Structure formats: C-alpha cells, structure tokens
C-alpha cells in the first residue's frame, strides 16, 4: 500500500512527501491559470513532465522545454525505480544499482536546474516582469505561478499557440508544367518533425526559370530561402517535383548532382591548401573520370583565369583576401560547368565594388545559358544584372511561402515599391521592423497564379 501511494505521488506530483505534494498542487494551480492565458490547454498542467514542457512554450523557450521534458521523464523513471527499491527491497538500498541511479539523478538535477533557470528567465521576459521575480520562480515556482496565473495584471506578450500554428490555408493550387529546358519547381511542402510535431517550413511554391536567367532570391530572415535552395538542389528533399533540363533532380539525384553548383554562404575550403591544389582536387572530384589529365588541367587554368585567381595560384587559401576567397569558392562549383548555379549570399563581407564585380561574373555565367539563383541582402546595387526575382515570405504561421516570382519590373508593380529592400520591408513581420503584409501578398500571388 505504501509503495502504491508513493508511486502514485511520484506519477502525479513528482514527489510523495506531503509538503512536496502541497507545493506541486500550488504549481499545478498556477500553471492552470498561466496556460489559459497563453492559449494552452490548461489540462496539461495535470500531466507530469508535459506540464513543464508546456510551461516552456508559454515562456517562449520551447527548445529548452524539450530537453527539460526528456530530463523530467528520465528523472521520473529513476525516482520510480528508487522508490520501489526503497520500499520493496531494503537490502538493495546500498547496492551498486542504487548508487549509480542516485549519481545519475544528481547529474540530471544539475542539468535540470540550468534549463529551469533558462525557462524562468524566458517567462519573466514574456510577462515583462521585474528581474527579482526570477528568484521567486527559481525557488518557489508555485507561488509566482499562482500570482501570474490568476492576477489579470500579468499578461504574456505572445500566445504560445502562435508559435506552432499550422500554415496559412490559402494555396494557389497551380502546378507548373515540366519543361525540357530550364528549371521547373513544383514544391507542395517541406516539413520537419520537431519533438513529435510536424512543422511546415515551406509550402506551395511553383515556378519555372528559363535557361540563361539570373534570379534574385529575396526574403526576410527565417523566410526559408536556404531551405528552399536546398530543396531545389535535392540535398534536402521536400514533397516536390523539381526538374532541370528535363531531368528529375530528386529521382536521379546521383546523376544530376553534378549539374548543380551550390556555393554556400561561408567559404568552406581548407585554408591550409593552395589555390591550385584546391581547384585541382575539385576538378578530379567533379569532372568526368574519362576526361584526360590535359583537359582537366586546362579547365583548372581556364577557371582560374575567369575568376582572376591565376596570380595567387600558389598561395594558401587562408592567405587570400575576402573577395578572392569568394571567387575561389564559386570557382570550385563552376569548374564542373553546372547548368544550375545557386549562390547563398556570395557578396557578404565584400565592399560595393568587389560585390559588383562578383555579380558581373555571375551575370557572365548566366549569359552562357546557365541558371543562376542568388541570395543577397544588398540587391539594389546590382539589381540591373538580374532577370527575375523570387520573393519568399513567412506567413502568419511562420511557414515560408512564395509571395512573388517574375521579372524585376513586375515585382515593383506587384508590391508597389521601387526597390527590392522596400519589398523585403513590406513582407517582414512588424516585430522585425517591417510592414507585416506577407499574408496579403502571399494570398494575392496565389490568386494571380490561380487566375
């Protein structure tokens, strides 16, 4: 009977001492009120482990809440085992198993304390409360929980549910027909599972890009630009059909991956290797194996000449200037002469002149019949070089959506703005300093496509 009571106490309140249960009851009551205020089902307050996770969501600290959930679950299991041993197997109390579990419980307690502090700091920020509340939250969590839960004076800044709502329902419902040449993208959705929840990262993106076009990819922070590019190049697959020059990128990825050059934002090269060796290795990796050594070397020389790297061919990569590193990074992908060339902020860290030079080189590549897609945060100084623009925006549910795809002039007309930076400001959320009109343009573009 004693064992059953103790186990029940642990299962419901994480403890079986009377004063512990009283404190837990206070906490549950407080959570009940706070969950209601944050739009979370208050009944979660009754469920051990989960109530702390839900509380973390109310505090805007969901990632920490996940870790805390796992730690709480482990602690619960260990508490149960130790309680059963304590009640049922007295002789086992000093055993190695008990000692090991106790040591592990202590380690978990330390981790739990750290994450508890993080979440409490989050809840204090979320309620715009004074810093001293933090101490109450840390040591007598139940008390501030009850005060904040039932006093109308204390209100959270954001509803917890806002953080995980489903995507905006307005969809274009239009697919683009696959073309023999160029890039066709029909992306239904790109989702990710996080802590048993399905999250929509991208949804309803359809477009066709002609060969020889240089395309600007615009979007605010977190709009899913890099996710979109990774979905297009097949590295992170989405529920989509993407074809390049008639070839299915997802279906024939192993064959098609050499058709796509992806230049990441950072210069991901080994600093202690020379420019020539870096390019030579890239050529051996990316070029067909039946290409003669003479032709391969000629290609390396040609690429070095195109990107102005010949004078520094013997230098270590780490000794190059920022612009040279960017050019080398692009040259690594260009060496295989891909049909689709994707660049993630190639001009970051470069001054205006160097950025312009780089973009002109990309224009030159596009003029060779390639498709070049570029993400840049300073588009207006080089906007004349681009043919089209893709505008991605976070809808009200934080899913990346297509707000526009078309020529630069059409974009200006569609958004009623003259510069690309103004367009970005229009679709950015208000808390990011924007106009918060993303949903409006997403819906408008979907309707345009549908029409």
């Amino acid at each position, binding site marked *: 009977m004693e064992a059953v009571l103790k186990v029940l106490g642990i299962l419901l309140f994480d403890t079986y001492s009377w004063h512990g249960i009283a404190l837990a009851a206070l906490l549950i009551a407080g959570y009940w009120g706070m969950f209601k205020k944050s739009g979370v089902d208050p009944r979660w307050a009754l469920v051990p482990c989960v109530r702390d996770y839900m509380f973390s969501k109310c505090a805007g600290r969901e990632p920490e809440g996940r870790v805390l959930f796992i730690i709480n679950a482990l602690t619960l299991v260990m508490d149960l085992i130790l309680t059963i041993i304590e009640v049922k197997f007295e002789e086992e109390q000093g055993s*190695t198993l008990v000692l090991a579990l106790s040591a592990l419980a202590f380690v978990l307690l330390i981790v739990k304390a750290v994450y508890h502090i993080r979440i409490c700091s989050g809840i204090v920020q979320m309620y715009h409360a004074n810093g001293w509340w933090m101490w109450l939250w840390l040591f007598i969590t139940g008390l501030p929980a009850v005060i904040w839960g039932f006093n109308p004076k204390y209100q959270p800044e954001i509803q917890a549910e806002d953080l995980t709502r489903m995507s905006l329902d307005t969809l274009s419902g239009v697919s683009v027909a696959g073309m*023999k040449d160029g890039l066709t993208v029909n992306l239904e959705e790109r989702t990710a599972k996080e802590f048993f929840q399905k999250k929509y990262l991208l949804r309803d993106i359809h477009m066709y890009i002609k060969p020889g076009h240089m395309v600007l990819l615009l979007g605010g922070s977190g709009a899913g630009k*890099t996710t979109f590019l990774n979905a297009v*190049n097949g*590295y*992170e697959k989405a529920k989509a059909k993407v074809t390049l*020059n*008639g*070839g299915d990128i997802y279906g*024939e990825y192993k*064959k*098609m*991956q*050499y*058709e796509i050059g*992806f230049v*990441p934002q*950072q210069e*991901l*090269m*080994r600093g*202690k*290797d*020379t420019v020539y*060796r870096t390019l030579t*290795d*890239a050529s*051996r*990796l*990316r*070029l*067909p*194996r*039946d*290409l003669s050594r003479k*032709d391969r070397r000629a*290609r390396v020389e*040609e690429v070095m000449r195109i990107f102005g790297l010949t004078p520094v061919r013997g230098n*270590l990569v780490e000794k190059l200037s920022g612009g040279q590193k960017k050019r080398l990074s692009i040259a*690594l*992908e260009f060496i*295989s*002469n*891909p*049909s689709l060339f994707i660049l993630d902020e190639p001009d970051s860290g470069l001054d205006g002149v160097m950025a312009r030079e780089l973009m002109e080189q990309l224009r030159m590549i596009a003029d060779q019949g390639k498709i070049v897609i570029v993400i840049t945060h300073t588009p207006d100084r080089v906007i004349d070089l681009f043919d089209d623009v893709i505008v991605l925006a976070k809808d009200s549910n934080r899913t990346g959506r297509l707000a526009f795809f078309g020529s630069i002039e059409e974009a200006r007309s569609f958004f009623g703005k003259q510069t690309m930076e103004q367009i970005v400001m229009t679709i950015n959320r208000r808390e990011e300093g924007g106009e918060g009109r993303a949903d409006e343009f997403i819906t408008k573009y979907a309707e345009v496509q549908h029409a």
Partner: protein
Amino acid sequence: MHNNQATANKSGHLVHIRHRGRGPQVIIYLGKLLRMFLYQNDWKVLPMAAIIAALVSMVIKKDFFLTMEGELKGSFALTCVAIWNGCFNSIQVICRERSILKREHRAGLHISSYVASHMIYQALLCLVQSGITIYVLIIMGVKIPMDKGLITISTAVDLTITVFLVSFASDMLSLLISAIAHSTTTAMTIMPFVLIFQLVFSGGIFNLPAWSEQISHYTISSYGLKCFAAQSDYNNSPMVTLWNTLVKMKSSEIGGTYTVGQVLDLLEDKDNGVMTELRSREIDATFTVGELWDVLASSETVNGILDRKIDASMTVGEILTVLRTDENCASFRDINLGFGTVGELLKILDEELEGTELKELQIGRDFTLREALELFKVEDGTSKYRDISVGRTFTLGDLIDAIITNPDIQARRDQPFTLKITVGQLIDLIGEDTLKEYVQSKTAQISHIDAYEKNVGNVVNYWLVFIFFAMLYALLSVIVLEFIDKDRR
C-alpha cells in the same frame, strides 16, 4: 570546354557520365591529407610522440622488462601513450571541417572514401609515431630485449606493432567521436571522458569490482595492457615489492613475548614454505671418535659420572653397552647435543666400532671414566682410533623433529620468552638469498595471470582485437557521417 555531365539524349533520357568512384576519391583525399600534414602542422604529433615517450621512459626504465611490477607499470604506461597518441591524432580532424565535408559530400564525395583516406593517413601517422615511441624508449635506456621476438624478428618490432595497433584503434575511436561531434569544442569535451573510461577500465592498475570487469572487455586499453604484459613476459618475471619492503624494514625491530608452544607450532607447520625449505637443508654430522671423546671430556654432565669405577676386565664394547643400557646412565644418554642425544650417538658409535679392534680392547685395570677419557686423549696407542669417522648426515628437519618430539620441550610449551630481533637478523637467520628467491617466486606465482602469458596465441588474438576495434569504429564513422546532410544549418 567539356559538355555537361548529365545530358538528355534523343529519347529524353539522361545519359550518365561517370565520375571518379570510391577508390580514386581515396587517393584524392589522401593527397589532401598529406598536404595538410605539412601545412596544417599535423606533423607536430611526431615530436610530441617522442616527448611523451621520453617522459614515460623516465618512469618505467628502471624496472620494465625486469620485474613483474615493472612489466605491469610499463605495459600500462605504454598503453596510455599509445591511446593518447591515437586519440589526439584524429579527435578534431572531421569536426573541424564538417561544413567543408558537407559541401564536398554534396558535390559527389563518397563518405566511405573520405573515411578510408583518413584511415590510411592515420595508420601511417600511427605507424611513424609507434616507431618513434619505441626508438625513444630504447635510447632512453628502457631495457627492451633485442632478442628474437615472439612473432617477428625482434621483440622491439613486436612491441612497435602492438603500439601501432593500440594507437590505430584509439585513433579510429577518436575519428568516430570527431564524426559524431559537430564542433571541436564538443569533441574536446567528450575526449577526457573517453580517456578516463579507457584508463580506469583497463583492469590492470585499478582493482575493478566484479560487475565492471565485463566493461573492461570493451576497452582498447584492457587488451593493450594484456598484450604488452604478455610480450614483456609478465608471468615469468620476479615480483619484488614484498622483498624490497622487507629489505627496507631490515633495521626494524620485531619481536614480543611468545610461548615455546608458538615456536613449536611454527616449526611443525608443514604448509609453511620457508620451513619446508629449511627442513630440507642437510647438516653434516659426521665426526671422529677423537672428537666425540673430546666432547664427552668437556661435558659437565659427563664429568658427574667421570669418577665411577670401571671393571678392568671390560672391553670398550662392553663399556659402550653399559653406557647404552645401564639405568644409571639414562640421564647421560638423554643429553641432547643439538643433532641428536648422547644415547643415539652411543648407538651409532657402537655400530660403527662393530668388528674393530677398539671395541675388543681390554682396558686391563680398575679405573675411572675420567682416566679412560684421558687415556684416549693422550696415549699414543689410542690415537689411531681417534681418527675413525663415525656419525651421519641428517637434515634440519630431523633436528626439528627431534626438538618437537622431545617431551621436556613439549612440557614447556606454555613457558613464555621474550624475543627481540630485527628483520635483518631474521633474514640473515633464514638466509638472504634463500628468502629472497622464495619470496619473489612465491609472490610471482600468486600474481600469475593467464591473459598475460607470453605466447603467440595470446598476442595474435590481441592484435586481431585491435584490428576489429579499428574497423568497427571506422565503419561506425561512415554510418554516422552518412547522415551529415541531416545536420541543422
């Protein structure tokens, strides 16, 4: 300029152009790693290995390959050196270029080729480090035998192979950690735990509780220690700790109040190795008739009966018979000479003189025993008998048994006596060489471990285990890295 790699043919299907496969990619990355060795200062691990070996040799050179304790200490130290070298060779190699690897994987790099190139490169590095380590140990004076090895041409080569395999297995373990960790900070945080785990659960230095002994079967260090101990012939080396402790205690005084019974029990103890050895020692107790007479003449007890008249008609043999059988002479016969009683000596003398002229010699007049003794001592006519050799050789065990069975001594079992003796005196009493040999061999016998037995089977088994560990970790590295595209950006 070449054409694109995958192009559509007339029917619209893609024509696949083949790129370099796994083998050639290994060559490409091996070249890259060798350049990194020069430019990225990876070469520094070589002098580092020499420094570590030199430091360790200062500690182990005194008794490695000489004593059991030295073998264990040296084996543990060598295992630590090998694991340390291996772990630090590769702990950062993947995580520091994880983003680069991800990019190259996206460009067509096979993960298996990447790991294989690291395996080859790290194997070369470990091999050179192992050679350096053994070379430094030799020049620093560690007494590595230069004889033919158990498996190869030399023990030093055998040891180099073991150091290499332990290093390589550890290297691959670190490679796995480097593949799992997403940053160098994470890898370097995990590293100490792995090292501590390996060293604590090696099972040689620390006494592990029974439940944790199973864990040691999954550590490289455990097999490393066993392999080095087997190669250094641990089981056939002397164990010196106890003897050295005794020598250090030579001036320490031991003793106390004991009873005669305690001493007798000690002498009787058949299971006591020292006593068994002592009992088997032979004592030469042969003597001449002259020597016997001299002893008798100088004995105070004999002097008590010296003036007893002896019948002139008696021969020497008859006198002996009287001395052996007469009740009045019983206490005389019971005199213990240390190697036997007078009675036993008289019996031996009687038997030895049997058939000799001396036994039939008529004394000729009434005289006392004193006069008889004097006669044998001084008269020329009797001097020829003085040189007759009598007696026998017996063991110390016989003597001990005589003491133990003596009823007088047994009657005094409860009699206390105070003993004061130093350990050194005790050692001298037993015999330093005897005791040293006994103590060292006995403790070595107790410390015998089958897993440390020097034989080809053991060593080859351990080598195979290292290779298995290395391959397993490399395979796991490949599996882990195959998920690199799932990394969060």
